[in-house]
């Protein structure tokens, strides 16, 4: 206690770099505004909230851009526990833009259902705030807080349709397993703290093998911590929640979960691997290798059996997660580190654009068909050619067919694997190659429905796409195509993304 008192007496308030925190502050301000306005706004004018939310997110992009342009390349706060580096800026950009697209997807969806709109926007923005924080957190505590900040609103969003038992189920499953996973992760963190005597990632990195070699506690700690985020990225066998939650949750929320929430998990995983665990790669590399191979394969083979489009996309996104994990499995090998990081960031950027596009089409189509079956896409091309073509583009991109975005993402992942010049890397590369073929089985199935099958109920009235959805479609299409044809643009950002203080190069 004495000791503690001294420490408290010595405490100096940390200096805050407000420019560095500006994106978070803008979002925080925006969500407060939404919360307060919700109390006063008339039910018929609730659409204003979606406008405010979207402008909040766009406004938050401004400081991200100014930070990127400013001379200070790395801003660290609170004793290096909160760092704004190029990696975090790129990822903040990804979160904010995909958040913006999710807002676009949600607005029409919410207007049509009798939902609790104000709270929806509030929760969405809170979760996004958690994600923004996650990108900058470099300390176990701040990572944990960011994780919970992004997760807890997400649990509620998943259960958003209160009267719908499916939605309830989705929320409860997500919550129960999410909390359980983070509890396990926390246990791992506590052990990690025990063996390194620090919660700061860079210190952990240097302390973790300071005693020379490592014990079983190290292994247990590292594995448990990784499990927490493997759950978040729905890596097999920690994926079980994902299909059920995705199917049950409102579709825009599913889009949000499958893109932003998953990306946040990867952000944490990447930061941990690059900043905290570079020297214990013999623990996490095999683990992630197995996770990656399992995730790709199981996600694919299960997706092949699905009849519900959202559930199929859920499994698809599980398997896509396996591809993102792929480069991380060799990230510790000499020479592969930087290309692995680049591959992960690139994959997340492109995957975000493409997958949001898929959900935009699903939303647009389900407005007419009111069905979640894959067969509801039958003959889409004949009555809604634009949507048909766009869905084809997105699915082909997910399947990794040039010249659409997905191919360069997969390409970069393979490149990182081969860059490692290790047998395990090659083997995983072949596993990935085979899986990318299997994946076409179900993507192709949807394409087949769209192009080659008759309209199931013969109803060929055209689909009216609301403006916001159209905008979302436009953004995602342009991104998917541009990243595919000029991959340099996406790669440029991915290449810029460097984690300050990362040991792996």
């Amino acid at each position, binding site marked *: 206690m004495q000791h503690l008192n001294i420490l408290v007496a010595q405490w100096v308030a940390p200096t805050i770099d407000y420019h560095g925190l500006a994106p978070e502050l803008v979002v925080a301000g925006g969500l407060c505004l939404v919360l307060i306005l919700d109390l006063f706004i008339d039910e018929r004018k609730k659409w204003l909230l979606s406008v405010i939310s979207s402008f909040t997110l766009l406004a938050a992009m401004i400081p991200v851009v100014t930070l990127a342009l400013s001379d200070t390349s790395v801003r660290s706060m609170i004793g290096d526990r909160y760092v704004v580096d190029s990696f975090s800026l790129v990822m903040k950009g990804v979160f904010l833009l995909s958040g913006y697209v999710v807002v676009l997807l949600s607005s029409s969806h919410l207007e049509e259902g009798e939902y609790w709109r104000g709270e929806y926007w509030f929760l969405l923005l809170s979760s996004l705030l958690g994600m923004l924080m996650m990108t900058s957190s470099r300390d176990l505590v701040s990572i944990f807080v960011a994780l919970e900040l992004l997760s807890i609103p997400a649990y509620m969003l998943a259960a958003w349709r209160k009267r719908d038992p499916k939605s309830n189920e989705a929320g409860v499953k997500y919550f129960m397993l999410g909390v359980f996973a983070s509890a396990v992760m926390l246990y791992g963190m506590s052990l990690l703290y025990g063996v390194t005597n620090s919660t700061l990632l860079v210190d952990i990195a240097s302390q973790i093998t300071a005693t020379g070699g490592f014990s079983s506690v190290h292994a247990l700690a590292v594995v448990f911590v990784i499990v927490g985020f493997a759950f978040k990225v729905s890596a097999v066998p920690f994926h079980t929640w994902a299909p059920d939650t995705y199917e049950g949750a409102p579709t825009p929320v599913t889009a949000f979960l499958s893109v932003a929430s998953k990306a946040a998990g990867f952000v944490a995983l990447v930061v941990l691997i690059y900043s905290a665990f570079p020297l214990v790669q013999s623990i996490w590399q095999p683990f992630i290798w197995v996770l990656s191979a399992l995730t790709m394969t199981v996600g694919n083979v299960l997706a092949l059996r699905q009849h519900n489009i959202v559930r199929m996309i859920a499994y698809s996104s599980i398997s896509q997660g396996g591809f993102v994990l792929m480069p991380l499995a060799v990230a510790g090998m000499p020479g592969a580190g930087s290309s692995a990081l*680049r591959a992960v960031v690139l994959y997340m950027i492109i995957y975000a654009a493409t997958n949001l596009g898929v959900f935009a089409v699903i939303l647009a189509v389900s407005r007419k068909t009111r069905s979640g079956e894959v067969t509801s896409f039958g003959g889409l*091309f*004949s009555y809604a*050619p634009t949507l048909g073509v766009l869905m*084809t583009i997105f699915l*082909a991109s997910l*399947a990794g*067919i*040039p*010249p659409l975005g997905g*191919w*360069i993402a997969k*390409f*970069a992942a*393979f*490149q990182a*694997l*081969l*860059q490692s*010049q290790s047998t395990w890397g*090659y083997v995983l*590369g*072949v596993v990935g*190659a*085979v899986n*990318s*073929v299997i994946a*076409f*089985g179900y993507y*192709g199935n949807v*394409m*087949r429905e769209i*192009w*080659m099958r008759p309209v199931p109920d013969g109803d060929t009235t055209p689909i009216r796409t609301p403006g916001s959805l159209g905008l979302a479609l436009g953004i995602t299409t342009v991104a998917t195509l541009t990243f595919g044809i*000029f*991959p*340099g643009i996406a*790669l*440029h950002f*991915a*290449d810029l993304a460097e984690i300050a203080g990362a040991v792996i190069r």
Partner: protein
Amino acid sequence: MNMLRENNWVLSVGTFLPMLGVVVLMLMPKAQDRAIKLIALVTSIATLAVGVYTAVIFDYGQAGKMQFVAETNWISVIKSSYFIGLDGISLPLYLLSMVITLLVVIYSLDHVPSPGKPKAFFSLLLVLQTGMAGTFIAQDLILFFVFFELVLLPMFFMIGVWGGEQRQYASIKFFLYTMFGSALMLVAFLALFVKTGAESFSIPYLIEHGGSIAKNVQIWIFAGMFVGFAVKVPMFPFHTWLPDAHTQAPTQGSVILAAILLKLGTYGFVRIALPILPVAAREWAPYIGGLAVIGIIYGALGCLAQTDMKRLIAFSSVAHMGFVMLGISTLTSFGINAAIFGMVAHGLITGMLFFIAGSVKERYHTLEISKLGGMLTQVPRLGWIFGFCTMASLGLPGLAGFWGEFPAILSAYNPAAGLNVTVFRVYMVIAALGTVLAAGYLLWLYQRIAFGTPKNNSHTGDGHHEKLQDVNTYELLAWTPLLIGILVLGIMPNLLFSVIDPAVQATLVVFGG
């Protein structure tokens, strides 16, 4: 390798002009049938015009060098660039793709296959054109890969939407097969990139440095490429997608598939696999040659077992591409010359045969050989054109097919230094026997379809002979250039060989002359 960079805009324009057409088509309302066809026609004519202009300003004196080279940053992060160029190997194939597309468009003016949707159909056709042309000019592996894959989806839809009874099965099979190959190919490309010091994906660069890779590594990388290209060719154990795809595809799709798409694989061997990995190529050559001759015999036997005209023609492609691969596997400049000639010749001839099969189907509503007969009495012009193409296909000297086949066989007698001569001579004899089988199945086909008297049940159910229309104007327009090409190349093979040869010589420098 020194390169010529003048006029380097022509290639980009020639390749991407169809995409402009696609954009315009996209903006057209669906109902404007005539306008859509007109745009497609104009686009493909313009593309061919650019292609012809390219051929005119091509410096034939330096056909061995890359010409019209353009190189700009594309994906600098992974050291890939937009690097295109044209040499004597690419030029004929590049032009062929443009010609075939135009002819297919002309043919389609009158024959948009069921279920219609001309807008989508022509758009896909033009996208295909960009992909095909791009593959032949890409000088960067990544760019090559992108173009190589670009043709996949349009063809998938072409088969799947406009195809025959089992189109969906055929299209998925086609796609998965090719995708499997190209996934492994991509891994091989990456391995190549890493093993040459992760400096560049440029083909000339890799040719310069690829030879230094350790032998066993080369062999593995070559294996990856082999699968990728062999699926496309298709070589013997990887060919089973082809009969289905060909049979189910609409006429236009079959024509493009046979005339151009199959060549992407063989072109890949010549342009990428052989020069970059010469050591592995030597190791692999006997096996490639072996699979090639198996393909020749096997394809011919497959033909003999067919009862469907289109399927028979499809199987004949397996045999013919076997000759092409045999030429390539000799690793001699002569063999590769023969192979490239064979590609062009096969493109013209088999493309033509598929056109004919399409027209037969349209008139008789069946392709069952047993239900056809007496074509010469009912539609004599079609029958004679069919006969001409049959003769060309079975390798009659004086027509284009012969100059792909005979030199390939010839080259197998004396393969490149270091290859087992005895093995290749055995291949030669087997391949020569294959020519007999080729004559067998083609003439047998011709005899049963064109000769004899028309079958009563051939086209109408009620046994009443309706007057069948002979070759119409659109067909004539679309076919004449091909027929002339078959004849002219048959009589003057040097037109083509003189262009190819310097480029092949330049390519084979890595093999030590």
